[in-house]
């Protein structure tokens, strides 16, 4: 237990006389930690950690590997965690427990994945005493109940779970069921990730723009409560940019192939633009990984590309618009420097600035989005500015200036260079009478794990103790209590 670790650390510090012997006064920060766990599932990763810490200790991809069993196709082997799912095992396929909307799609696997997330790093399943685990008993029916009780992985830790602002009632009830029935949590709470992201920035009232992998959402938060009717979202998020890049690569002359790392056995350096000279890995027939595995591995390459090359056009005006000096902004962008990028197979090229801007411009300007048959062009209402305006229009007038003055930017996909500047520009142009102010942390970790950090703060507060849904309450009212309590 980390607490006991801290305890010993404190003891040793005391021994050397280096630290105060007193713990920080609880009144100073309002904290009163009860070893609660915070679980924040997202489309790309699932984050878990102890409340009161500043980063999640356990970060596991929400993708899982599936190796179908040859004899019984129904019982496929599930693989969780970065170390397992990136190995090109025979016939491995990759799936995601979350739907594209950010809600849980496959509850059984999700429960497994979350359990893995928590138990792999944070808690350990208690070893059952040999005398009572029932394995050695000839009659299996004797002590099963007691065994179950003891095997629950979270018997000591209250759990705070996050959910999206548009999570439906069924999914919420399922959440508490898993926590209470499967994991035996003494207390549970379901919090909206928009609210938590606002808390992480120290704002009880804010307009949270959460740009994740599958969804970009705008959540107005008032006094720590979301305004449900005004939550807006669209799929123009991180994966949309990846798809834009795929389209961009396919449309360039000659088309740029994306070869993921696992396919490369060896490579030699080549000049920019020259064909790659690499030897590729081959798989015996019948053992090739599923195409979803290749797609997942390509995504990893694209993620690297997005992190290092893609840039948001920061104006003035839009990329498709006219510059104040005359001429189009496209012409201006052509003057900007490009950035080199090397694919895993050694192929490399200087990517011109126009491509770097173009890949993400569709998020702000639907007309600039690339499209093909599989990737329909986004509608004008799906752009980030349209989402924010439509969200604001459904909020009380008195609240709007406050929201515009506290726009919290969170989500790993908001880390594109120039994203915040551009958004600020667009919003200020749309609302000239109001002061628009962005609250965007400059720390990568805080941006990536905004909602988890908020949950960590919330669950470690002394005043939060009275809000937990206790096991007793759950047993009394059933899973419906989540709707009543977690508003």
């Amino acid at each position, binding site marked *: 237990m980390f*607490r006991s670790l801290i*305890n010993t650390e*404190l*003891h040793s510090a*005391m*021994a*050397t006389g280096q630290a105060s012997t007193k*713990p920080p006064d*609880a009144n100073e920060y*309002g904290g*009163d*930690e*009860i*070893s609660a766990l915070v679980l924040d599932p997202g489309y790309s990763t699932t984050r878990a950690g102890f409340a009161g810490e500043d980063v999640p200790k356990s970060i596991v991809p929400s993708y899982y590997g599936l190796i179908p069993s040859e004899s019984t196709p129904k019982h496929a082997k599930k693989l969780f965690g970065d170390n397992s799912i990136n190995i090109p095992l025979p016939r491995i396929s990759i799936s995601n427990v979350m739907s594209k909307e950010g809600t849980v799609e496959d509850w059984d696997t999700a429960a497994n994945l979350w359990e893995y997330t928590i138990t792999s790093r944070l808690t350990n399943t208690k070893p059952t005493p040999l005398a009572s685990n029932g394995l050695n008993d000839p009659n299996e029916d004797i002590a099963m109940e007691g065994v179950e009780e003891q095997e629950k992985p979270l018997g*000591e830790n*209250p759990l705070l779970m996050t959910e999206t602002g548009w999570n439906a009632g069924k999914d919420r009830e399922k959440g508490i069921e898993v926590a209470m029935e499967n994991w035996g949590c*003494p*207390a549970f709470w379901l919090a909206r990730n928009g609210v938590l992201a606002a808390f992480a920035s120290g704002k009880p009232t804010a307009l949270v723009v959460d740009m994740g992998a599958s969804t970009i959402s705008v959540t107005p938060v*008032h*006094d720590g*409560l979301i*305004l*449900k*009717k*005004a939550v807006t979202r669209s799929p123009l998020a991180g994966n949309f940019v990846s798809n834009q890049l795929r389209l961009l690569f396919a449309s360039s002359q000659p088309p740029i192939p994306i070869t993921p790392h696992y396919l490369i056995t060896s490579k030699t350096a080549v000049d920019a633009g020259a064909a790659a000279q690499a030897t590729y890995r081959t798989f015996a027939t019948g053992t090739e990984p599923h195409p979803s595995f290749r797609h997942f591995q390509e995504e990893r390459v694209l993620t690297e590309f997005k992190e290092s090359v893609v840039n948001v056009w920061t104006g003035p005006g839009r990329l498709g618009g006219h510059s104040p000096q005359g001429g189009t902004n496209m012409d201006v962008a052509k003057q900007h420097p490009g950035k080199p990028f090397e694919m895993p197979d050694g192929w490399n090229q200087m990517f011109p600035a126009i491509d770097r801007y173009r890949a993400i411009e569709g998020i702000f300007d639907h007309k600039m989005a690339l499209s093909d048959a599989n990737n329909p062009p986004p509608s004008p209402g799906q752009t980030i500015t349209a989402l924010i305006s439509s969200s604001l229009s459904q*909020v*009380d*007038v*008195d*609240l*709007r*200036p406050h929201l515009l003055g506290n726009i919290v930017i969170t989500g790993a996909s908001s880390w594109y260079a120039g994203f915040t500047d551009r958004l600020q520009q667009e919003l200020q142009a749309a*609302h*000239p*009478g*109001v002061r628009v102010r962005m609250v965007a942390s400059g720390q990568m970790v805080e941006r990536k794990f905004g909602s988890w950090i908020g949950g960590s703060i919330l669950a470690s*507060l*002394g*005043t939060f*103790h*009275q809000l*937990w849904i*206790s*096991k*007793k*309450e759950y047993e*009394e009212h059933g899973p419906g209590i989540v709707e009543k309590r977690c*508003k």
Partner: protein
Amino acid sequence: MMGSDARDVLGLPSAGPPKPATPKVQKPKVRGPTGMSREVLDLKYEGAPPISIVAPKFKEKPKLPFKPRPWEETPFGNSARKDGLILRHWRRKGDVSNAAALPVTPADSNAASEMEQDEKAATTLSDSHWAKFNVKVDKPQYTDEQYETHLKNDDWSKEETDYLIDLATDFDLRWIVITDRYEYQPNQQPKENEDSMAVTLQAKPRTQEDMKARYYDVAAKSMVLHNPLSSMSSSEFDAHEKMTKYDPNQERKRKMYAEQLMNRTDEEKYEEEMLLKELSRIVLNQEKLFNERKALYDRLGTPPGAPQTHSTAMYQSSQGLTQLMQNLLTQNKNKELEKKEKRRSAMGAEGDFPGGPSGMDRGQRHSIGGGLDKRFSFGQGGPRQLSAREEQKYGVSHPNERLTGGVQFRHERITKAGQAKSGVQTSRIGAALTELKIPQRLTMPTAKVVTEYEKLIESIKTLLEVRKLSEKLDGEIKVWQAQKEQQEAKDRGEEVKEEEPSQTVENEEEDEDTKEIDEQAERRRKAEAEDDDEAEDDDEDEDEDDQNAEGKEEEKEDSDEEVSAKGSNKDEEEDAEVDENFAGDQDDDDEEEEEEEGEDDEDEEMPDEAEAEAEVDADNNDDNADANEEVEDDGASSPASAAPTTRGEGLRKRSASVISHVSNKSSKRQRR
């Protein structure tokens, strides 16, 4: 190095007992293979190791000044919870500083049996430090009967009201959230007796204002029901007041405006900024402007108070109103008083106060003009004392005589000065001024200059009168002389004798004129020129202070003119033109004179002049007719004028009266 040296260096006891310094025992010199260093050879052949071996030893345990207190995972309850959830946190062993005792209830023991077992000995659990922050809003309470009697509303069913109040309590009156979460579904399970009713019910869309209005209404009424107004504390009463005064329509309007304000475009914003700047500029200047206006009001005499404040704020209290009424009453009284006085008083002499007071505002004027009559000054301020300089600046005068003529502007003096009652005279004055090279309209009409100008005009007028008189007398003398000659001719036959008219002539230069007896117009012209000269002299005297050099120049010019007037035709033509002008102006003059009832003495001269002209220009019929009229009007003063035979007599009488009048007038002026 030997092994013993190494031992010495490392402080180790020597291998054996110290040997006495015996003569060196010749050790067998062992020679190793060449090329090896001495140290290596030593290692090989000497017995003692070159390094010491120290047994490893752990660091000593520090001696702490206190006994370490371990931390332990302490279970605690929370009195804000109803379910008795027991959580654990890490606390110092034996530290109960921030925990109050919380009695264990049977429910607790059921809920956390596992934890109970750990704490079997303890009969109490510590309460959460944070339980005291569990604060809830008061929920308005009412019974069904109370609802029926007091809170019934056609728009809101009891179920919906209950739902609203529950929601408001749940969200602690965060109306924005309440509006967001309001999802009232009318009665899903209607009561048996209201079945038909419930089916027809439909959820009405509720705005935040509707909800607030309903909630405040219910809350205020239930507040009164539980606690009558009279026994409420002040804070409760305030809350009640606020709730009863909520106006949803106003709130709606406010939000509409707020939305408009938020949706301004950039241009609108810019325009508004400009307007605001303009406004601030006006506000800055307002003080100045207002002071100027106030000064003007003060001078024109408006009720005190009103112009100073420019707002009705001071009249909003009953006290202010009474004061205003008092003021108005006093003013009314004063007005009446003034009117009475005015009626009693005859038309006073012409005052020289340019902005002469009307009857209405005399009291106020007095209060400003240095307080001649304190009786009339009212208002809290009292008369303002003006310095001499200010008095001069504002043209304040302190006339001894009563002033008439109503309110006038000072600038009227400038134009008025050059105007006489009759157009003829005005143009003559104008002609005189042009000769003097003084513009009719002053270029710089300061108060001083205008006063001097007025003096000049006055003397021009006098001169004109005198000239007219002299002409008349000349004419009469000529007539009488002619008659006399005729008489003598009759007496003496055909002999014609010329007589010198020197004894009746007033001017020294009259001699030359005697040659042309019959042509009176000619003579009049000459006389005019001479009169002008005279006027010039007078003017020079008066204007000496200001324009000495000019005067001298003018003198030269005048003498030139005199010369030319005598000989040149050109001058004669000009004079004729002047005469024509006179004739033309006559009409206007007459009309004026008909209108004006109060005739001045100057007007009496008009018929004389007309007569004189009539004698000269027989063809000027209009003049004649007018002259006759005037003569008729003047009947009182010259009864014999109608008869041609007694004409000479009448003329003489009249000339005498004119002379006396002129002398009177000039003496009066001198007095002034």
